[in-house]
Every structure is written in structure tokens, then in C-alpha cells.
């Protein structure tokens, strides 16, 4: 076992982990932050996407010890300070960007990373960016709409399809 310390959603946390402990396991099992979902556990589905030093990564394909000293952001840290949904989360609700909701934490974290580097993405750019996030319910249409809306863009063109 080795000691790992990182900042998660603005709070300093530490724990004893094995070399093989994945970041996803540390978040879920040691910190009880179960919003980070394990879908495939083979780095394909993107349900476990979190931010490490501001960049989207798949928490199931990174070891907890590799996040030593890092700033980690998870879905639990996305809401506004008063507890209300942030713009992306609210847009997912407004545009029915989810059905079962299992992929949603990863979708929201990927969307947040996308909008940080590209505040007004086109529909094509959104779809390209979400290639590593799999949703088996929605057909992606409403997810793309939600992200367009969250970036302050008109969704009527895609809504009319």
C-alpha cells in the first residue's frame, strides 16, 4: 500500500491504495463518490470520465497513484455553490439529454471539458468530441441539443430534424 493525496472537487483528500488501484475505484470506494460510473471498465464507454488537472480522462484507465498531487473534478463537484444544477446539467434536464442516466455523469464531464476548450462548438464538433462517450438510450440527439443549449446556441435547427 502507498499513500496518495490529491484535491477532489476542491477538497484535499488522501488514502492508502495499492499500485493497481484505479482512480475510479479510489473515487467510488474510498471517497464514496459513486457518481463516477463504471460502465465497461475497458476505457470505451466514457461513463467514468473525470477531470484531472482540467483535462477529461477515463478514471477506469488511470491509477490512483498517477493522480498524486492533481486537481481532480468529478460529477459531484459540478453543481453550483448553492446546490442548483450548473448550465450543462440544467440543459441536460431541459432537453431530456438522458433516459436511464447511467452515462450522464461522463457525458456532463466530457461536455464541460469540451466547452472549456471550445465555448461555441458546432453540432459536428460536439459529436466528434463525444466519440468516447457511449449512450445506449438516447441516440445522442438530445445530448447534442443539451450541449448546444448549454453553450448558449440555438438548438432549433437540430430540433427540427
Amino acid at each position, binding site marked *: 500500500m*502507498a499513500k496518495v493525496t490529491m484535491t477532489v472537487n476542491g477538497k484535499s483528500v488522501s488514502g492508502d491504495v495499492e*499500485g493497481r488501484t484505479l482512480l475510479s475505484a479510489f473515487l467510488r470506494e474510498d471517497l464514496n463518490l459513486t457518481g463516477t460510473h463504471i460502465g465497461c*471498465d*475497458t476505457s470505451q464507454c466514457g461513463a467514468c470520465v473525470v477531470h484531472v488537472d482540467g*483535462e477529461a480522462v*477515463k478514471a477506469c*484507465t*488511470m491509477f490512483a497513484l498517477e493522480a498524486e498531487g492533481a486537481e481532480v473534478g468529478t460529477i459531484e463537484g459540478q453543481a453550483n455553490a448553492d446546490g442548483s444544477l450548473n448550465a450543462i446539467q440544467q440543459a441536460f434536464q431541459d432537453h431530456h439529454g438522458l433516459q436511464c442516466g447511467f452515462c450522464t455523469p461522463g457525458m456532463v464531464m466530457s461536455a464541460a471539458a469540451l466547452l472549456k476548450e471550445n465555448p461555441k462548438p458546432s453540432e459536428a464538433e460536439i459529436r466528434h468530441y463525444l*466519440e468516447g462517450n457511449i449512450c445506449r438510450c438516447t441516440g445522442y440527439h438530445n445530448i447534442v441539443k443539451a450541449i448546444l443549449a448549454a453553450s448558449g446556441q440555438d438548438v432549433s435547427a437540430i430540433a427540427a430534424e
Partner: protein
Amino acid sequence: MYEFDLERPTRVEDAVKLLSDSVESQPLGGGQTLIPTLKQRLASPERLVSLTGIDSMKGVFTDRGGTLRIGGATTHAEVAAKAAYPGLSELAANIGDPAVRNRGTIGGSLANNDPAACYPAAVLALNATIGTNAREIAADDFFQGMFTTALEEGEIITNVTFPAVRTANYQKFLQPASRFALVGVFVAKHDDGVRVAVTGASNDGVFRWSAAEEALNGDFSPDAVAGLDVPDGDMISDLHGSGAYRAHLVKVLTGRAVAAA
């Protein structure tokens, strides 16, 4: 996963020392291939030596003559954002998905030499030099068949140097489930001739298509390769495509790369 220790050295010499002592160790780059491999229990090192904490192995540097040097632990995302070099940033921007590109590294990809990876095609066509902790290896000597390279046990790719090139282009026919290349062709026009490297197609891994190089040296146009035959004897044949299909793609993609270069 079987149990192992994970070390995160911050200097190349410390990593080399860890990789050469008596504990059975394996280097860890971004882990986007190795971690899934460990999960399947296809590898069981006693220790992993992470290279991503070594700052001297990160970064993208261009000199005035057009030579590009990329640190071995540089992520695909950083190459995509910073490599002002024909064909290379587009190649990096289309590996895997954004989260994979934020972790996966050029050194890791080259050391693994997956027969369908994109970077080996770029390195071979661009006649790049692989720099390790011990020596420099020419691209033509580095790739030695699928998942096999000239690297010795415990040898680390510290940087990759790409010489200035006149023009270059990479065409990737995506295998949409794995996001690897079903076939990928990198065409590079150098002062001393054209090099064409093909990934995804051969059972021997990345290779140079010399007939196309000869034809393109005479006439750098898509028509020059249209009449060539691609030998399909050692082409990969699987549920995604037959060997003949891949051979056909090699020719089509070469033509497209020449047209786009």
C-alpha cells in the same frame, strides 16, 4: 489485475535504474493500452515504472529549420495542439477519443508498435529518429514486426525527432469500434524522395510501400499509384475486412494522401 508496485520517478536516470534492477518491471506510459492489458491479466509485472512524471520527456519543440522534436511522454492531445508540422497534428487529433488523447503518449504508442496504431506510419514515412536513454534509432531500424521494436529490455523512448519535410499527409480509414486504423497511409515528400508508410494492413506491422514510393518519385500524383498492385499475401484478414479489401484500401488511401499533401 495482479498486484504490482507503482513507481513514479521524476528523472530518466531514476526510471532506467528501476527498470534494470532485479525486480521484474515494465514501463508505463499513458496506460491506454497497458492498463486494459493488465485488467485482462495478460501481463503480470512486479512493478510498473510510470514515465509520465518525468518533465524532461514532455513537450513539442520546433526549430527554425523545421525540425520537430517531441518528448516521449508527450500526450496525443499536446501533439494535436502544438505540432506545427504537416500531417502530424491531424494524425494525433484523431487517435482514440479526447479522454484517451489526454493520457496516451507518443512514446507509449511507438514502444507498443500495435499493427494498427497511427504513429508508426508517421515515424516511418517521415524518417524520424527515435531517441532513447541509450541511443538514437532510425525509423527504418526501429519497427521489427507487430508489437516488436528495436528497444532493449528497460530502454525508454525519451524523444522522437522529425526532420523538416516538404509536404506530408496522413489518411486513416477508421475502424469505428476500436478507433484504430483499419488501414492508414502516411505519405511524405522529402528533398531526397517520397516515403510511403502503411499501418493497419500487414501481419508484419507498419511497412513501407516501395513500389508506390518509386512511382511517386517519378510523378507525385494520385494517378501514379492507381495502376499499381498491392501484394495482399501478408495482409491482415479479420471480421472487419479481408486481406484483399485492406490491399485495396492501401492504394485508395495512398492516392488520397498524395492528393491532399
